[in-house]
């Protein structure tokens, strides 16, 4: 692994399922990164504040309640509004394939569904930093094609 990154893992909205968020956070940490987990039920503003205060390079959003179409774009918009354009955003949870293009269009660079190996998330992180302009508010239209 090239370099340790600061990564915020966040639970937007009201969803209480955080088994996935926490094991992903732990796997990222065990791979050498510095990981901050926000805890449950964070507003978009609270998440963006955490990303800024922690000077994070990556933000992982988790949702299993079906509200991702509302919640993820709100967080992305707010990151852009506050000038945090270079933060790389990825997401996971129960997110139907049909909903994913709209999320990529907001600047999210990967969506990982149930059963994704954590090694794949680490690969994504290594690759995403190599891609130019892969931040949430930057020009690239690249996104990761996930296995699940």
């Amino acid at each position: 692994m090239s370099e340790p990154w600061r990564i915020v893992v966040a639970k937007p909205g009201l969803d209480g399922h955080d088994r996935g968020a926490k094991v992903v956070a732990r796997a990222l940490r065990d791979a050498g990164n510095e990981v901050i987990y926000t805890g449950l039920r964070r507003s978009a503003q609270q998440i963006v504040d955490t990303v800024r205060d922690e000077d994070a390079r990556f933000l992982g959003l988790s949702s299993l309640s079906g509200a991702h179409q509302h919640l993820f774009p709100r967080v992305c918009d707010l990151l852009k509004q506050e000038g945090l354009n270079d933060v790389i955003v990825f997401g996971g949870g129960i997110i139907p394939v049909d909903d994913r293009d709209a999320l990529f269009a907001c600047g999210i660079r990967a969506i990982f569904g149930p059963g994704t190996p954590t090694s794949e998330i680490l690969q994504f992180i290594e690759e995403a930093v190599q891609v130019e302009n892969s931040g949430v508010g930057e020009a690239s239209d690249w996104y990761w094609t996930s296995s699940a």
Partner: protein
Amino acid sequence: MVSQRREDWKTLSGLDLELQSTAKTLAELQISEDQLGDAGSPPYTRGIHSTMYRSRLWTMRQYAGFSSAKATNERFKLLLERGQKGLSVAFDLPTQLGLDADDEMSLGEVGKVGVSISSLSDMRQLMDGIPLDKVSTSMTINAPAMVLLAMYIAVAEEQGVPPNQVLGTIQNDILKEYIARGTYVFPPAQSMRLITDIFEYCSTNVPRWNTISISGYHIREAGSTAVQEVAFTLANALAYVEAAVEKGLDVDSFAPRLSFFFNCHNDFFEEAAKFRAARTLWYELMSERYSPNNPKSSMLRFHTQVAGVSLTAQQPLNNIARVTIQALAAVCGGTQSLHTNSYDEALGLPTEKSATVALRTQQIIAEESGAADVVDPLGGSYHVEALTKQIHDLALEQILKIESLGGALKAIEQGWQQREIHNAAYQHLNDVESESRLIVGVNHGLMEDDTVTEVLKLDPTVGEEQCRRLAELRSTRDADLVSDCLDNVRNAAQSGDNLFPHVLHAVKNDCTLGEIIQAMKDVFGTWMAPSGF
């Protein structure tokens, strides 16, 4: 020595497995046949009723709810028509957190994981045309349980059914919310007070209602082992009993209405043994510590839902086989009611088709498999008796550990259970990723799957419609009366008066869920539990 496919053999929860259990195994574990007893007799290892399913099958109770009260009411009627015996209401997250549909935090969540109920008028629509003196209703509601039960009682009264006739269960188990499920609102002490207020009020006014469903389900979904599921659930149960006894309630006035809710995962024998162990352990704990006069006070009655977390998004039809194994284990373990999951739940909410297959799976077990024709069909198996004893002993050890930390509540405040569960979940993830644990479709039996699985699409206008209904309600009701009712709730919260009658009065006068919970927050405050990460 004949070679084996693996070097070490363990159950899904990590218990060591010997190749062949024998009479010697039982002797080593100090198990004798006369300890076992009969079904219907203490320690109830073999079941709480002497004739079990020969007299009455378990209640096939499918958890359902989505979108608006009207849409869910239609699904309920369909399930009843197809032979389901009781209802089980899934509420959306705003409702579960005591927020109205028009609250800012509710945006995007209204009607998603369950039905949106903000006022008495929604509850009236939800139960329209369903006879509340005949159908029993289970409601998965915790922090705001008192408000939703009050709405249900009010609707029953409108149907001419008095409170002492309504049948059902509220989950009302806040401790596992802090540990694993996340829909808590108030700090622990205030939450416990709401729960004991409900016990007290219902023991005289709503005597056929199960006032709590102490749940291991979500603890297991969050990643615990089978032993932890039993231990943490029973430790929580002991905390509720202790709180009620401290409030001055007689143990026999509420303990017979305590019910439990467990998970059922893939390891067939371990799961069947888990239920037998939980029943035995609860009997021992209750009878030793509280010496109840009513035998029902120490009988563990439980609902089971099969493990959502075991379902794979890959090759989803395979989930029908998983659910069948799990449901059979629950029946062999003596469950009182059962929810079978739909095969598409790793993808979205169940469709009408997948929900029907899930119900039919239970009917096949009931009528075709033979498992329901005798009591405790696995009893006496060396393997199952050994597992039962191991789970019993290890769970007791964990309960004593929690008590050494000051009890369930104190341990939660330290994040102890949360950490233990997180560690077990991480261990499981590593086992799967290192392929020491194989899961078909995930790390074994992989293939390109071209099955197109239809995913239930929700009505996107449900949030707006709920907001419109609320705006109408707020503009047509008696505002002074509403404000008086909410003051009463605040005053009772402050004074320590039982809150239930005040909440019932408030819902009957069209105070909304969000307003009543806000009135309580004004006095109780809110809380965040440690995550365990």
